[in-house]
């Protein structure tokens, strides 16, 4: 899978019309602060794969069984839904929510797993004098998460790349669901490499 994904990075200019695309996420766990989230898509029945990747973070430790701390467990995930204006207490804005997953020990469930960034529900930035505002992308350490996958975005106080915007755009343009909210029948999945 990893090899296929790596081989499949092709020039986007070669891609045919987007209407018939089928896509999915992959996540390559390298380090908590520096891993790789990719969106891969094909135009069935053509098996050629196209991939776009972004830097992403996950967890504060590399033990996937450490609830609330370890990075995302390996395996395939079903997408629960996608929101542009998610209004959780600690996660807001653009999110993808994935299924729960048993970690490698087979007895610990990781739950409440998202792809997200640090932004307000309206996809803005709320940057105060606090060292680490949860809705403001201020610094490198914001790639840390409690288990989710995190993408950067620019803010008034730091110039990180607009990776959330890029991932969001590729998702909707190249084979992701055009819909928002609960997506129980969506085929778009996530694969986390071990």
């Amino acid at each position, binding site marked *: 899978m990893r090899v296929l994904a790596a081989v499949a990075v092709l020039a986007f200019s070669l891609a045919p019309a987007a209407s018939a695309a089928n896509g999915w996420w992959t996540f390559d766990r390298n380090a908590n602060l520096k891993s790789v989230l990719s969106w891969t898509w094909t135009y069935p029945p053509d098996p050629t794969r196209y991939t776009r990747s972004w830097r992403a973070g996950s967890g504060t*430790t590399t033990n996937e069984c*450490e609830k609330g701390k370890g990075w995302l467990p390996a395996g395939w995930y*079903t997408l629960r839904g996608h929101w542009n204006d998610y209004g959780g*207490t600690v996660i807001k804005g653009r999110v993808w929510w994935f*299924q729960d997953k*048993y970690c490698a020990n087979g007895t610990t*469930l990781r739950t409440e797993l998202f792809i997200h960034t640090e932004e307000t529900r309206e996809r803005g930035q709320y940057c105060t004098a606090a*060292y680490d505002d949860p809705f403001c992308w201020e610094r490198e350490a914001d790639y840390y998460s409690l288990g989710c996958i995190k993408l950067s975005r620019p803010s008034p106080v730091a110039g990180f790349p607009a990776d959330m915007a890029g991932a969001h755009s590729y998702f909707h343009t190249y084979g992701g669901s055009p819909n928002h909210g609960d997506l*129980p029948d969506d085929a778009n999945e996530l694969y986390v490499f071990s």
Partner: protein
Amino acid sequence: MARVRLIALLAAALVSAGCGASRSEERPTPERVGPPGLFTVGSRLYGLSGRSPVRLAGAPVSPLAGWMSPAAAQSADGRYVAYNVWRKLRDDDPARSWRDQGIEPGDPLAIPQIRLVDLELGRDELLAEGAYSVAWRGDGALAYARGVERSYRAFMPYDTELIVRARDGAEQRWSAYPAQYVAVAWAADRLIAYRISAGEHVDTLVFGRPGRERLLVEGGTLVALSPDGSKAFVEEGAASGRPRVRVVDVATGATQAGLPLHEGMSYAGDWRRDLVVARGGSGLVVFRVGGGEITIVQELPVAEGAREPRFTDPTGTQIIASRDTPQGAVFLRCDRERQSCTELQSEPGRLIYNPSRPR
């Protein structure tokens, strides 16, 4: 197999001779002794004084809490062991997605259960269906998180209420509203619990009485309670800002001491006298608490990390912990004077402990 073990022993002896008395992270040859106190191997309960192992109805495990709270805990009077069981209603292969396995939103996947072993009468009974995480109060009351629904279902957060069950069986709800709680420990008559929300964000709460919660740590967890239960050693990780540990007054939430760290600590540690042991990023870290300060006194490296460390002697020199391996969790004994940790046995097991204070 015997030949393999012999070769391993010889190899260990050679390595030992070559390395002399240098600080060893772990010896490769496990000791064939169990940890002190109660522990389980599979569904067998060991460590009962003068008694044979007891077979439980299932292996203690609490998937919704992991090791945020003990999978099994012994009451203060030693008579009871409350433990978590996970009754699977269907298989769930972690390598495959739910969709690929035909699991639909709302499908019931498992039922968490709490069982109670009466060591005096030799009984093992179901205490609560659709419930998990146990915390014993000194008077024999048991706190746990009980699901609003009995079954854990696909794509549905497992919302719970915090229940306190008195020794006479009377139940009282302590949480004011449903959430994903984990019962952790009693600090005297105050209940410490976690509330898990989106992204596995964890807040540590204190319940002074039914319906009255207070935030003790936002985005952080309990490492351990002081022996008298008045203070909590808490951690906040890098995802919540700068990693740090603090000593907070359980009654007021006031910070009494703090220490910024380069790497975050983890929950489920222990506090003995003025020493606190916690799981760190590369092993165990021992802190000293006193005089309004927290200092690091020792770091014990453990490959792949160690969890649920407990002091096992009055001076805080000996520590027992466990570590996940592909075969399951193995026990580690760490000697602070020798600055080393030794694997005790290869069978998968869980430590049984009671983090409530005072006991």
